[in-house]
């Protein structure tokens, strides 16, 4: 719009008489006080996360799941591996809350036992990915120049390797066990994390507060620890919440094609794979419970990750 050319409007403020205005009492002691408490980055993020109902329900589901994974198998009178063939394919009842499977094993017990394995695989894979990713990405981003160039070429090559195929290859040769699955999942899994950390570090290391820190003579490890890492935590946490479900999915997938945890050990993938034939004969519960918990765990991590992404984004801070 053009500047107001109507003289009556342009000069209207002159017609407001001065006596309409009075001086207000001014208290010097409160003038500088902030009207609301200052929130740290984490307090603010937490407040915003709490407001996100979907993300919070995901969080509560996961807390409940972890609790049941710990106490569930203890609560139940049945053993995870013991077969009870006369009692095979019992529908859910007061004795077997989730029914029994083809070997007469209690599905309730096996589900929580499977939760232990799935959550353990997911969390360990995420932790290892984060540790390697932070060191590799941090070094690459902070050093910059030639080092960064070489390290990034390596990442580019590793990134091109098909993740699950490498995992399958390794598992075909290694003895299948929990440790080998976690190793196989993390061999190339850390690459994504390293890329994210590097991107963040590259950006932050040029900010003035890092320069100020440097000009005070702070040593490099301390700069990385105190200035760079805390400011990269947001994206790292978000990436972690997305790594856990993908590791859980990978474990279920591998168990399903016969490369993961082996039966009789219970993991959700093994349970789903074992009960494939069962649902065609109407024993839906043997598939339903592991399938439900795999899907809901992935769902919970996904919505929590989405919520954290919004909550931890400083640009969205109000």
């Amino acid at each position, binding site marked *: 719009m053009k500047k107001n050319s109507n003289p009556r409007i342009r000069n209207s403020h002159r017609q407001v008489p001065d006596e309409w205005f009075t001086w207000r009492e001014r208290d010097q002691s409160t003038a500088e006080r902030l009207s609301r408490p200052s929130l740290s980055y984490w307090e603010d993020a937490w407040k915003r996360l709490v407001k996100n109902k979907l993300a919070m329900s995901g969080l509560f589901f996961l807390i409940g799941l972890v609790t049941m994974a710990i106490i569930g198998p203890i609560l139940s009178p049945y053993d995870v591996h013991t077969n009870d063939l006369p009692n095979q394919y019992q529908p859910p009842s007061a004795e077997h809350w989730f029914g029994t499977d083809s070997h007469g094993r209690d599905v309730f017990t096996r589900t929580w036992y499977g939760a232990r394995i799935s959550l353990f695989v997911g969390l360990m894979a995420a932790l290892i990915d984060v540790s390697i990713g932070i060191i590799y990405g941090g070094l690459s981003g902070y050093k910059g120049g030639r080092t960064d160039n070489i390290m990034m070429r390596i990442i580019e090559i590793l990134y091109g*390797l098909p993740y699950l195929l490498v995992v399958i290859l390794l598992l075909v040769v290694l003895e299948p066990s929990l440790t080998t699955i976690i190793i196989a999942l993390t061999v190339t899994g850390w690459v994504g994390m390293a890329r994210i950390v590097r991107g963040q570090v590259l950006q932050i290391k040029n900010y003035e507060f890092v320069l100020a820190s440097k000009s005070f003579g702070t040593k490099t490890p301390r700069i990385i620890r105190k200035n760079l890492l805390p400011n990269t935590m947001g994206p790292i946490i978000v990436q972690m919440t997305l790594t856990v479900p993908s590791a859980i999915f990978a474990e279920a997938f591998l168990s399903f094609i*016969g490369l993961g945890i082996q039966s009789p050990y219970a993991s959700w993938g093994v349970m789903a794979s074992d009960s494939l034939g069962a649902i065609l004969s109407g024993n839906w519960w043997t*598939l339903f419970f592991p*399938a439900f918990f795999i899907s809901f765990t992935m769902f919970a991590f996904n919505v929590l990750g989405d919520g954290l992404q919004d909550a931890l984004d400083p640009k969205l801070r109000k």
Partner: protein
Amino acid sequence: MLRYILKRLLIMVITLWIIVTLTFVLMVSIPGSPFNSDQTSNETVQENLERHYNLDKPYHIQYLLYLKSIATLEFGPSIKQPNQTVNDLLGRSFPISFELGMVTIIVAVISGILLGIIAALRHNGIVDYLAMGVAVLGISIPNFILATLLIQQLAVNAEWFPVATWSSPAHMVLPVLALATGPMAIIARLTRSTMLEVLTQDYIKMARAKGLNPWKIIFKHALRNALMPVVTIMGTLLAGILTGTFVIEQIFAIPGMGKYFVESINHRDYPVIMGTTVFYSSFLIIMLFLVDIAYGILDPRIKVNKKEGE
């Protein structure tokens, strides 16, 4: 541009070489000879077999022979299925898997983009929440679980579709649905968020102010820019669909590569495992390379030429 392509090509060749070498090292490190099974307990027979497959030669010669056989696309014989080579298996099963994969991608891309656009246009409306709810569910439910649910509900209970195998278009519906839901959900979410961003930009306002047809604005002006991130993740989605075919083909008894691959894993048929892995990986790595090049050509903002100056 040529320089960029050459650089990507070099990286692709190195990645392929790593995969091939890794497979070789793993194959050699498997304890015992592949012929240590019950049928060939005779020592002379075993020695003859090993000589026939060059297993008596030193490792470096074996490695060179292996590289040569891969370069000439000869993946060797199957151990567990006599008179069958890996090439026979691939030649028979690859077209089926390829068909399944292609139909899945087309379905996933089209439905994902449409869902994303609708959600973005009805931002924060009921349709948006519904579409995104479906998308989060689609990401959360593993495809092998979705597949069994579909079989139970739509094939066994409702009898709308055949339970398994691969012969008519009706047979394709359930496997494609099970395989396409995940990628579709990812594409829908991505399209929605980039569409939302693009729709607030000045040139869209300008187009609206000019009084252009709203559909033309969406499909010609907004979507074109909103689709760039979708192109970026095509490589990852391809990898996901490809590994997805392993279980889907197994569940639906589709005689594709994935089914043979999983069977060879269960039978520990090493040459088939290694051959198919190399084939799969090469296929994927080449696809990733093509996606990268396509991205470089499609997005005018990426100055691939800039890399020349570095």
